[in-house]
């Protein structure tokens, strides 16, 4: 009764309120964008974004004439493919880094970081020629591979730290029960570092989703992601603010919606009960 009320107030003060403050900071620019995207075009510069005369014209135009739907699909395929490729390669590599001590371990971990330290723009030209030689320009595969190379290094490092947090005794227990190393990875470790996997998958998805340089250079008429499509809204003499903001609003949604579902698995206590008894 009294205790409940006090703890509810306490919770409201220490959790809900600060959370709202953070969300206010997070969402304010996004809401400003949303407002701009529904503002009537002729009023946009004279009176600024406003709800008066709000219209969804930008959204219909975005999908009907600009063909944003196709772009969303292309982005989705590229990002999804990168998650699959990136995760499968990173998890196995991370397990190896975490559980084994072998020669060249430190060097290889460093090599992965080195890959992300080099400014991407200088890699575009050689990479473009490489893809052209392989005949992969303007295909999904080219973009998936290119994005994976950007995503893998960080993913390996992150997954290694997540796997490190799981006691080795669990591996060994699994192997005593008759699993091979890979079996131990698959049956025991992976389920336990599910939060880490989710976080890494989110990271890979978002990195691939927002990538522009590779998408521009290696894509083309067949593969046009939303980042490239949005850039075409910035013209030489005019910026299509309404379409641009509408594109941005829609562009942020897939990742957000996916995370809404996936974040349920980010719960504590997964390592407990694993070794009791």
């Amino acid at each position: 009764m009294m205790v409940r009320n006090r703890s509810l107030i306490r919770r409201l003060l220490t959790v809900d309120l600060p959370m709202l403050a953070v969300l206010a900071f997070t969402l304010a620019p996004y809401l400003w964008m949303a407002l701009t995207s529904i503002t009537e075009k002729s009023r946009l510069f004279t009176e600024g974004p406003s709800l008066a005369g709000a219209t969804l014209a930008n959204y219909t135009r975005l999908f009907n004439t600009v063909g944003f739907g196709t772009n969303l699909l292309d982005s989705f395929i590229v990002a999804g493919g990168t998650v699959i490729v990136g995760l499968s390669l990173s998890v196995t590599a991370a397990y190896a880094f975490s559980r084994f001590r072998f020669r060249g371990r430190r060097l290889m971990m460093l090599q992965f970081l080195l890959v992300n330290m080099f400014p991407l723009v200088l890699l575009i030209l050689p990479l473009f020629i490489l893809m052209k030689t392989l005949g992969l320009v303007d295909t999904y595969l080219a973009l998936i591979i290119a994005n994976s190379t950007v995503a893998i290094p960080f993913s390996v490092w992150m997954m290694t730290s997540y796997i490190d947090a799981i006691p080795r005794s669990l591996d060994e227990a699994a192997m005593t029960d008759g699993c091979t190393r890979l079996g131990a990875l698959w049956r025991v470790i992976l389920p336990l570092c599910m939060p880490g996997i989710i976080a890494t998958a989110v990271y890979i998805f978002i990195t691939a989703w927002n990538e522009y340089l590779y998408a521009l250079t290696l894509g083309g008429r067949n593969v046009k992601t939303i980042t490239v499509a949005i850039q075409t809204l910035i013209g030489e003499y005019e910026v299509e603010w309404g379409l641009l903001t509408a594109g941005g609003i829609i562009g942020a949604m897939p990742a957000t919606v996916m995370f809404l579902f996936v974040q349920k698995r980010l719960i504590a206590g997964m390592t407990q009960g694993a070794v009791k008894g």
Partner: protein
Amino acid sequence: MPAALPVNRGHLMTQTRALTTPIGRRILPYAMLSPAVVVTLVIVFLPMLQAMWMSLHDYVLFRPKSFDFVGLDNFSKALADPVFWISLRHTVLWIALTVPAQMLLGLITALLLNQQFPWRGLARALVIIPWALPSVVIALMWVWIYDSNFGVLNDFLLRLNLISHSIPWLADPDTALYAIVLTLTWQGFPFFAVMILAGMQAIPSSYYEAAAIDGASSLRQFWHITLPGISGVLLTATLLRVIWVANSIDVIFVMTGGGPGYTTYTLPLYAFIKARTGLDYGYGSALAVCFTILLLGFVILYLRRAGKNIG
């Protein structure tokens, strides 16, 4: 630590296995690594070596026939270039401000998102949004927010009487870089929030329960349980973020293009402008190589100090 297991038995079994399949065991880690390594080697390392090779030549894209070997000329030119040093200084400032800001805000957010409250799922999803937006959209939106004609920031501050007239945030050399730092903090803190949140899930709640029973305050619980528990993840995330922020030029490029003057030039941005816009790939590559070497130096130092907590 979890309840003790007969670990010795496990070790013995593993050792027995090792005696019977030594080669298999030794190759396994390399086998598990090889796909990732091979892909990175071919797709990134090869181009990187080509770029490094370009840096030793005088190579301008619109004069594709002349590819004279100039040795380290581009590098000595860089060291004598005042813009190089200005860019370097800004890069250091850029990283030193943005990463801690992102990390702190991300940490606070993660702590909040780890608590129990009814709309937690929604909050977690909404926090992702800045991170999920394409850079060009973020840059343009914030340019408009900072706009001195109808920017909402100036409007807001004017109404609160904190400033007397609109500040041209991006045109004023004193504020431009910091304005972009704020934008990047907004863009990047969700990364830390999600990564740290995931890391927190591995900390058994029994620790917190035990600490609560012992009468420890929330702050002490944070300091002695949470922080050590996420230290590995935190240090790794910070390292990765430093590398990412150092290299990130999308937002700066669209917001100010490096201006006004050279005020928002960072080293990778300078390399980008030289190569992409100026088509001088020889010099641009040299700048990129310098940047990578400096960053690598920092990373090695960082790993030496924090290394025991990471892998």
